[in-house]
């Protein structure tokens, strides 16, 4: 008997429990609705006079300022510079965080030996390191990059450490009993277990990297969106400033979409995903 794979006559509801409902509204539509709500709030709060529109202009003026900005090559150059710095910093931090996280997390001795140092270094804010970075690299991209890597690395590392801790003892014993090499154990047991944590680490890290990239540009003056925001701020150009802030926010939204998309791909087996894709 072959497996009776059957085209369901009508779309079968997902494998999970729950009251029978109509077809769910697609996530994309709901998400767009959410953003629309935000837009409405941003438009209405100043229009209704809840705050002075000179300090928080209505959304429409932010958009028109954004349209103006988008017409200048400076904006696009700045956007490109920001994205580049962000991507490089995030990539470095991810690789370093994952590799070190797995090594430290898998070896109890290393973990015990490094934990106090990690706790010490972790809360030192990147911003406190700005003078040192400038000292070494001026306002070069490297200054901002080091801030981005430093701040993002800890986010990823901590997530990976917690992920490694979550390995199911029975799964670990299975790997041990079949004498998997350490590398195979990492690849086939530790890594898949930690993956959901890594995904969260990626999402946390992506935002932190963006934040530090922008902050670095703003404070140090490395070219990029942050510098433009700084200029707008010190020029009293409120709508332009918010226009640029909206761009950073949108980068965040896009990054999350990519992360979620990737998650559906690599975590298809995980309870959180399989409950949804059915």
């Amino acid at each position, binding site marked *: 008997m072959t497996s009776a794979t059957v085209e369901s006559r009508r779309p079968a509801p997902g494998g999970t429990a729950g009251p029978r409902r109509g077809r769910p509204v697609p996530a994309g539509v709901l998400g767009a609705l959410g953003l629309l709500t935000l837009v409405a709030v941003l438009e209405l709060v100043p229009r209704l006079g809840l705050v002075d529109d000179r*300090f928080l202009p209505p959304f429409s003026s932010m958009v028109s300022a954004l349209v103006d900005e988008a017409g200048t090559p400076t904006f696009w150059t700045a956007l490109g510079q920001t994205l580049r710095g962000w991507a490089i910093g995030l990539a470095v931090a991810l690789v370093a965080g994952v590799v070190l996280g797995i090594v430290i997390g898998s070896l109890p001795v290393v973990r015990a030996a490094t934990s106090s140092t990690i706790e010490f270094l972790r809360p030192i804010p990147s911003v406190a390191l700005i003078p040192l970075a*400038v000292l070494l690299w*001026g306002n070069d*991209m490297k200054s901002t990059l080091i801030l981005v890597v430093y701040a993002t690395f800890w986010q990823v590392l901590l997530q990976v450490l917690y992920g490694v801790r979550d390995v199911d003892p029975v799964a670990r014993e299975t790997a041990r009993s079949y004498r998997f090499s350490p590398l195979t154990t990492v690849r086939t047991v530790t890594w898949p277990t930690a993956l959901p944590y890594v995904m969260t680490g990626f999402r946390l890290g992506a935002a932190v990297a963006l934040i530090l990239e922008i902050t670095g540009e703003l404070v140090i003056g490395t070219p990029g969106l942050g510098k433009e925001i700084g200029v707008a701020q010190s020029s009293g150009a409120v709508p332009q400033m918010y226009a640029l802030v909206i761009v950073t926010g949108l980068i965040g939204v896009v990054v999350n979409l990519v992360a979620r998309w990737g998650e559906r791909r690599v975590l298809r087996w995980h309870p959180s995903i399989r409950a949804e894709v059915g």
Partner: protein
Amino acid sequence: ACGSSGSPTPSGGASGGGSVDQVKVGVIPIVDVAPIYLGAKKGFFDKRNIKVSMESGQGGAAIVPGVASGQFQFGFSNVTSLIIAKSKNLPIKVVAAGNSSTGVDGKDFSAIVVKADSPIQSAKDLAGKTVSINTLKNIGDTTVRQSVQKAGGDPSSVKFVELAFPDMPAAVKEGRVDAAWVVEPFVTIAKQQGDRVIASNLVDTFPKLQISTYFTSEQTAKSNPDLVKRFTEAMNESLTYAQEHPDEARDILSSYTKIDPSVAKEMTLPLWEPGVNKESLQKLADLAAQEKLIDNKLDVNQLLN
């Protein structure tokens, strides 16, 4: 790195041949530095074989270490910060004037503003009130206290809070602070929202108080005196030109700031005078010592060449 730079043709200047010096100047992208942008555009640097590029940072935290370590050859900073730095033996030298107060009470690029309906009528009334300044223990508190003292109030009872200039108009409007020390373009923006100017703190401190200068590291000053000399000359020419052509100075703002043109037109520009004003600097140094910003009195000659 990019950033606005002067005319792209470096050679053919008035002064003799020699190689072109690539020079990075750390500046804050505000009105005060308009002359260097204007001078760069006019070719005042090029003709002295200096290819100048402006690197903007948010303040001393980014610029001073940059200059001290040679990442930038020159930097722009307020005088009090430099005095503090010098008092800590940071090896720096002032090389050119930055900008100064106009010296005209009520018509300066810096002002203390209050809400239109505020009971505060003069600096005297600031006693016991909260005033926002951009940096605590710096030129802001020093000069605001001078205004209060001059108006007959008790300067020691003024409470200061730190806010960024851009956030001050809102803070005044919403009553978060009683008064704010602002500089252009926020003086104009504050006025546009109806705020009142009650004092000109820089004017109250010293006639034509020079509040910022360009500086370099002692290392550069020693090893490349010729470059410093050429830079000073170019700066002086730029300052003079900017002072004489205020409309061009207002126009250049759009190349490195996002100041609204209508605001830019109305703003009071600072005074751009060549030459470092030693008495003015010494006044600020004395005030710094008096206010305990520095431990001992400082002779500003140490800052000069």
